């Protein structure tokens, strides 16, 4: 089910402020964040986020096409390395 339009997109305020601060100083530096649920807004374009995936941080460089998606969509939290193989043990990933 889609989010109610009445509420508008969920954008984490503190993360947004951090981005705005960088924008004002015209600076670009990776932002470490755990806010996977935060929607990507146009102000984020060109920034790199280090998005936590439960284990480490994945670099996400935000492009125009990503607006409207959420940060977590670009930081996979599961890794599938293939099924086990009887003869060779674990299959090559």
């Amino acid at each position: 089910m889609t989010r109610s339009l009445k509420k508008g997109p969920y954008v984490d305020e503190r993360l947004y402020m951090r981005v705005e601060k960088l924008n004002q100083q015209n600076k670009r530096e990776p932002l470490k964040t755990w806010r996977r649920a935060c929607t990507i807004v146009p102000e984020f374009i060109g920034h790199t986020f280090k998005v936590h995936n439960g284990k480490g941080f994945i670099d996400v460089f935000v492009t125009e096409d990503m607006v409207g998606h959420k940060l977590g969509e670009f930081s996979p939290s599961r890794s599938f390395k293939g099924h086990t193989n009887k003869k060779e043990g674990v299959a090559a990933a």
Partner: protein
Amino acid sequence: MPRIVGVDIPDKKPIRYAIRYIHGIGPTNGEAILQRCGIEPMKRANQLSETEVASIAALIDAEFLVEGALRRQISQNVQRLKDIRSYRGDRHRKGLPVRGQRTRSNARTRKGKKKTVAGKKGVKAK
């Protein structure tokens, strides 16, 4: 047999059903088109007059995305998801369900026919 938008050749069925043979026209759009063209829905497709066929074709051309153009748009949307390396794009790439469905069982539409693994629980090796 009337031809509407390119190669679509609906047959002797009532036009209300025949029109759905066009990719992108389902029940809702079909009824709307007929109503706006002022065509009796139960009239057989082969009994439509030239002008009626032309009016349907003109309306579809003007306002609906059908056939190749529609397919192109859909694949472009999927391609976009793949290009931005989003989770959904990844699922499309792997041929698994995209909207969070379970894959432990079912999901056969996306995964295709069963591939039996020998030696797995309950499966006798051949």
